[in-house]
Structure formats: structure tokens, C-alpha cells
């Protein structure tokens, strides 16, 4: 059972291909975050789903109903698709009050029903006081909530959100994000949320779809994308990585912190090794022992729950000598001290050097 499905959707502006053979299906009640760098085509995918962008090739289905099929010339206009849509700039109607905005999509509903639905949403989103106020007098967070209420009022089975939190300042963002998450979950609407912010995607998505240059790179649970990225781009997108170049020898790649197994890659191939900062754990060197993987501490900073340690390894054949380590705890090693570094291979990824960075 799927609520919204894309099959082989491609889209070009002028001759510029911005969506390239895109496929994705979203289950009922599921929240999927479509994430990628700006200009990767993610907003175009959302606009195609809404019917705001004419479908050029491929198919789009809402539930069992095919709303777009370029091959058969089907392209249902946006007003007949019954989707909820929240825009980055909210696009509230300035000539209507908050209640008028929320009621805008409730045309085929009786006056009594309309009033009660608007009242319920105002209540649920803590906007009761603002029912008769005009949008330009509201704060950014309040406007965002009105936009969400307006999209949800007709009770759509699918909600599309385009960068809904990017206009909010950081202090407010987490709170509104939480509120939105709970509201969407309580409505059991299938949700496609477009964002450029990987942290936001991980905080909200049941699944995450990662796009780059019009192509779907990887789709899966947030932990899949973080722990099992399919390429260097995916690994780098969801968190900081230390990068070092290497070569496969005897089924492993040498790093300053020990060998990493790389049995799936052919012998002698050039590779990039990506090491998450938390994969590097720094320990003091025991008295009288010789460190097997030593490094010099350049700087150590406490960032709150974690500490960041800047390390430098002895010059050797390494393409990179500077590494970041992130560790729990607040005990910081002294600057210029020599420490032992242990590597966690489960947070370390090896990709062919030809892979996109």
C-alpha cells in the first residue's frame, strides 16, 4: 500500500535536466524527507507531485489513482489532487484573516463543519487568539503554523512541505519542528518534506531520500544513511568526515590508525577512506608503553556534550595529516601532548576514489 509514488520521473528546464529518472514511494502515515544540496531538484520533485510543474516524463500516483502519466498524457491539475502544501515563504493570503486562510480550502464543506474544523485547528496549533488577525502581523513561527493549518484543514491524505522551517530562527526551529512532527503523525498523513538540512531530515524522517544533481542517491532509515552510506557524498552529507586517500593491499587499506578491511574492492585500486570523527577515540598513553597509533594534539575544545580534538599524525605517506576526533566526556587532553588513537571500523567507510566526493 502506497500513498504517493513516483516512477521514472524526469524533468528538464530548457535543456537542463534537473530530475533524472526519479523513483520513490511513500506509505500511508509515513514521513519521508527529501534532502540534498540546493539545486539538486528536490523542490521540483515536490512541485511535480503537487501538479504545479507539468509532468514531462514518468508516472505519479496518489494511492491507487494515477494523477500523472506522461506516456498517456495524464496530468491532473493541482486543484483536483487533494494534497496539502506548505511553502517555504508560507504564501499566506494577505487579504484574508488567519481563520479565512485556514478555511480557504474548505469550500465543499458546510458552514457549521467549516467553523468547527477551523476552530479545532486553531486550538490544536495554539493560534486561537489570532483567528481574526491578518497574517502580516504574525511572527514567523505563527505564520508557519497558519500555513500548516491551512494545508491540513481539508484533511489531505498527503502533505507536501517545502523547506517549512528555513525561515525560522534556530531557537524557534527545534520547537516548531517537534510540534509539526507530532501534528503530522497524529493526522496519519503521508508526508514528503523537502529540506537541505541533514539534521532536520534525520530529526523528522521515518525515511530519508538523498538527492544529488537530479538523481536519487540513497533511500532508507536515517540510521542507514548515517551508518551505511552508499558513497562518499552520502557519507559526507550526513556528518563530518575525515578523508584520506589510500590503496587496497591484501584486502585492506592502511590508515595512520590501523588497517581497514576492504575485501569487496579489487587489489591495488585507489580508494578514499572516510572516518567519522567519533570513530577516532583518543586515549592517554600508558606509562612505559609504546603507542601503536600515536598522534599529537593540536587543540582540544569542549563543545557541550562532546569534545572535539584536533590531531596531527607524523608525516608519512598520508595524504592528510590533520584529523578531527569527537568524543563524549569533558576531560580534554593537553595541547601538544602525544596520545594513542583507536579506530572504530564500523564508522569508517571505504569507497573507490573515482566516486563522487
Amino acid at each position, binding site marked *: 500500500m502506497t500513498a504517493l509514488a513516483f516512477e521514472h520521473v524526469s524533468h528538464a528546464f530548457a535543456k537542463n535536466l534537473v530530475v533524472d529518472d526519479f523513483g520513490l514511494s511513500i506509505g500511508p502515515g509515513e514521513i519521508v524527507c527529501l534532502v540534498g544540496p540546493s539545486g539538486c531538484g528536490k523542490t521540483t520533485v515536490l512541485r511535480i507531485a503537487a501538479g504545479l510543474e507539468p509532468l514531462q516524463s514518468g508516472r505519479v500516483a496518489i494511492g491507487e489513482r494515477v494523477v500523472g502519466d506522461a506516456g498517456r498524457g495524464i496530468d491532473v*491539475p493541482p486543484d*483536483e*489532487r487533494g494534497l496539502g*502544501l506548505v511553502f517555504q*515563504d508560507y*504564501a499566506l493570503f494577505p487579504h484574508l484573516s488567519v481563520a479565512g486562510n485556514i478555511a480557504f480550502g474548505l469550500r465543499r464543506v458546510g458552514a457549521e463543519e467549516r467553523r468547527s474544523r477551523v476552530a479545532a485547528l486553531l486550538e490544536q496549533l495554539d493560534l486561537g487568539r489570532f483567528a481574526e488577525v491578518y497574517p502580516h502581523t504574525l511572527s514567523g513561527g505563527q505564520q508557519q503554523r497558519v500555513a500548516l493549518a491551512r*494545508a491540513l484543514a481539508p484533511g489531505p491524505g498527503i502533505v507536501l512541505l517545502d523547506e517549512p522551517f528555513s525561515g525560522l530562527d534556530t531557537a524557534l526551529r527545534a520547537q516548531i519542528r517537534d510540534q509539526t512532527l507530532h501534528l503530522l503523525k497524529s493526522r496519519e498523513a503521508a508526508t514528503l518534506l523537502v529540506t537541505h538540512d541533514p539534521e532536520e531530515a534525520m530529526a523528522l524522517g521515518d525515511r530519508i531520500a538523498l538527492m544529488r544533481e537530479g538523481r536519487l542517491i540513497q533511500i532508507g532509515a536515517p540510521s542507514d544513511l548515517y551508518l551505511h552510506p552508499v558513497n562518499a557524498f552520502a557519507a559526507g552529507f550526513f556528518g563530518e568526515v575525515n578523508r584520506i586517500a589510500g590503496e587496497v593491499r591484501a584486502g585492506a587499506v592502511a590508515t595512520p590508525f590501523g588497517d581497514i578491511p576492504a575485501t569487496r574492492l579489487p587489489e591495488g585500486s585507489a580508494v578514499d577512506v572516510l572516518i567519522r570523527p567519533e570513530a577516532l577515540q583518543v586515549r592517554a598513553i600508558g606509562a612505559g608503553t609504546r603507542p601503536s597509533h600515536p598522534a599529537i594534539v593540536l587543540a582540544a575544545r569542549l563543545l557541550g556534550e562532546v569534545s572535539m580534538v584536533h590531531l596531527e599524525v607524523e608525516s608519512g605517506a598520508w595524504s592528510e595529516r590533520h584529523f578531527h576526533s569527537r568524543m563524549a566526556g569533558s576531560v580534554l587532553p593537553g595541547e601538544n601532548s602525544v596520545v594513542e588513537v583507536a579506530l572504530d571500523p564500523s564508522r569508517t567507510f571505504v569507497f573507490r576514489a573515482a566516486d563522487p566526493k
Partner: protein
Amino acid sequence: MLRGGSAGGGWTPAAFVVAVLISLPVLVVTANLFTPAGEIWRHLAATVLPSYVANSLWIMFGVGLGVLVIGVGTAWLVAMCEFPGRRIFEWALLLPFAVPAYVIAYTYTGLLDFGGPVQVWLRDGLGMAGVAAWFPDIRSLVGAIVLMALVLYPYVYMLARTAFHEQSFAAIEVSRTLGCGPWRSFRSVSLPLARPAIAGGLALALMEALNDFGTVQFFGVDTFTTGIYRTWLGLGERPAAAQLAALLMMFIFALIVLERWSRGARRYQHTGARYQVLPRYRLPAAKGALACLACAAPVTLGFLIPALALAAWAIDTASATVNARFLTMAANSFLVAAVTALLAVLIAATLAYGLRIRRTPAMAAATRIAALGYAVPGSVIAVGVLIPFAFIDNTVDGWFRAQFGLSTGLFLSGTLVALVFAYLVRFLAISLNTVEAGFGRITPRMDDAARSLGQSRGGVLRRVLAPLMRGSLLAAGLLVFVDVMKELPATLLVRPFNFDTLATHAYEYASDELLVEASSASLAIVAVGIVPVILLSRAIARARAGQEGGRAP
């Protein structure tokens, strides 16, 4: 730009059809450039054509010079200097816009001719018996040029003033720190930077000068417009009139090119700090008084004197002239102006919405051609409307005669339909520009949001866009309304038999030398003409406050 789902619905084709229809007269006239010349044409070319060309060129040269001196000079004073009355002159300099050229011509003739108060006073009051011998004849080419310059300079003033305001603060500051006084920084910085805007205003003023019929007809100066009128109505030589119209279009095309170029060049001008208020030169007392005088002169000559004279005459003659017939004419004017304004706004909204949905090259081109009418003289448009309408009338009539043996007569030509259509062709551009600007200030996300909430394309226009741009729609309608009230040459040629408006009434009374009796109609036209001046000055005030709605991201 906004891309639609699937297609534009019915909007794009509808807009395209309307655009083509409105372009028809301009295309018909232009096509006459390529038709072979007839006998009467050779006759015209041998006799009157050289004087048409010469007079039209003299008018363009003289009016051009006049509007440049008055328009640029006052614009610079008002934008860059501080002197007594500056804030009043800022909008008062627009007032002559309210006076059509033919009205100022009738008024000054009434004031300055042999029987007018000035000569009477010189003769009787000062005892100069021979005044008529040396007093300049206002009814001449020079008189026409001076009077037209007095009412057309606001085009240059308006655009030049805006350009001076928008000029880079830094460029002026730098020139001042480099030791340029007001005069040198005007010549070496301000003027070159404002040149495109000035050229645009000049082009508009010259288009209006070429459009003029009432003044040159009344002054007996033969130009293309009077030639077209005489050849069409007097000689009944329609192909020759059409060729004169086509020839006049060549002048107009040159001006359109000038105006387009100036728009293109102006686009690159918006540099930095736009809302920074330029510190003005504080003029010392003597110079300040001179500046005040320089600004007061065009306002007085172009608006105050004619308006006051008209008011005085109208009060004198009101009991005789404001009768049932006058009220009928006022109602006629109001009716055609209101109908045209309503249709112009509806058509402009259709075209602009069609463009908003899908800006295809064909659609954009059709709209541009439909909007060319603003540049085309009313007499030319009249010819371009009457020729195809007569063709349709004759074809339908012939068909009915052949099929049923009955005549349908003229059901388009000589009707209000033809007149309103001619007005629409001429003034659509005014409503289109205003409505397009209104659309431009509304982010396309509004359309998207309304569509996703279940509104059709028409619903988006009705429920979201129209309420949001009520002000623009109203302004568009008002501007068209006023221009229709003032329009003379097209009305004269296309109007139904015995259909009089205030403009044709003023024209006919003036032709009969009943200048004082024409004053009530003229005054009514001037009074209505003040409305857009108020709109313009309010827009200027808003822009100054930096409230101009920018396009949302």
C-alpha cells in the same frame, strides 16, 4: 515566472486570441506600406505631402527641444536642489498632464486672439491701436509647438526626476568631493546617467505630439493627422488615407525603437543604495527665487492660466451652455469611457494572467504588439479599425443579400462597438502595464497555494489575485477612463452619426470660433484629467517613502 500544471487551461488561448484581435488595426495600417500607390496618392505626394512631412518634423524638433529644456531642467531642480516651494512643485509640475493639447490651444487662442482679453486690454486699456499688427499670431506652427511643449513636458519631467532620484548616491558624492559644483556634476554625472530615462520621456512626448489633431487642425498647420482626417472624410479617399497613416507609423516606429532602447538601457542603472536620500544643494536666496520661478512658469502657463480662464468662461456661460444637450454629451463621454475602462481592465487581466500562467514567445510577442497602440496616433488607429470593419460589414451584407435578399447594412462601422474597440486598441497598453505591475508584486506561490487548496485557475484570479490587486485594477481603469474622455481624433473618425462627446463638442465649438462657449466641456475634461495626476503624485510619494512593494522571493 510561473509554470502551470498540464497546460494553461483555457487562459492562454483566450489571451492569445484577444491579443491578436487588438493588434489587428496596427497590422492593417502597417500592411498599407506595401500596397501599390494609387492616382490620388501621387496627387497627394506632389502637393501636400512635403508640407505634412516638414510640419511634422518641425513639430517633433520644436516640441522635443521644448520638453527637454522644461522637463529636464525642472526635474533636476526638484530632485537635486532645495528651494522655496520645492515640495509643492514636485507634484504641481505634473498638473499640465491634465490639459489636452487641443484644450490649451482653444484657451490660449481665446485669450490671445484679436477679440481676446489680452489684445482688448492692450488696445483699449493702454491705447495701443496697432497692437494687432505686431502681436504674435498664436495660431501658427510656432504657437502649436509652444503650447504642445507646455502640456507634454511632464513626460520628460516625470521620468527624468525618477532617474535623478535613483542615481547612485556614491557617483554624485564622488563628483562633489572631486570639486564639482552643482552645474558641473549635473553636466558630467547626472545628465549622462539619466540619459536613457530622458530619451524615454522624450519619445513618449513626441508620440503624443504626432498624435495631436485638435491643435494643428485648429491652427491650420497641416500634418499627417489632419491630412488623414481630410483625406478620409473630406476627399473620401480611404486607401490614400491609409497610406498616409502607414507613413506616419514609420515616424512612430522610430520613436518606439527609441523608447524600447531607453527602457533596456535603464535596467542597468539600479546601483546600490536606492533609498538613500540625496542631500540636496541648498540654493542661496537669489538662486532659490530663480529656481522657484523656473518651476512656477510651466505650471502657470501649462495649467493655472488655462484652467482659470476656462473656469471663468464656464461660469460666465454656464446658464447658456450647460443644458440638456450638454448633459447628454457628458453622459455619452462617461458611458464610452466607463465601458472602455471596464473592458480594458478585463482584457488586461486576461492577457496578463495568460502571460503569468505561460509566457510563451508567441504569447509575449502578441501582447507586445497589442500594447503598441499607445504609441499609435488616434487617427491612425481609426483608419486601422474602420478598414477591417467596413470589410466585414460589406462581406456579411453581401452574403445576406445573395442568400436572403435583405441588407444587414453597417452593423459594425459607425457604431459604438467600433468606437470602443478603437479606444481599446489605443489605450489597452495603459491598463496592461498597470495590471502587469500589479501581478508582478504578487508572488507566484500565492497561485500555487490556492491551486493546491482546490481552486481552479479562474478561482485563483477571482478569490486571490483580484482582491490582492484591487488598487492596481482600479488605477488601470481610471487611467483608461480619463484618456478616453480626452481622446479626440479617433472619436471624430469612428463615432456613430450624431454621437457627441465632451471632446468632440469642444472641438466643434472651437471650429465655429465659439471658444468661450466650448469652455464648459473643456473644463470638464481638464477636471477629469486631474485624477491621474493625483494618482501619479501619490505613487511618487509612496516610492519616496520606500514602500514600493518588491517582488517576494
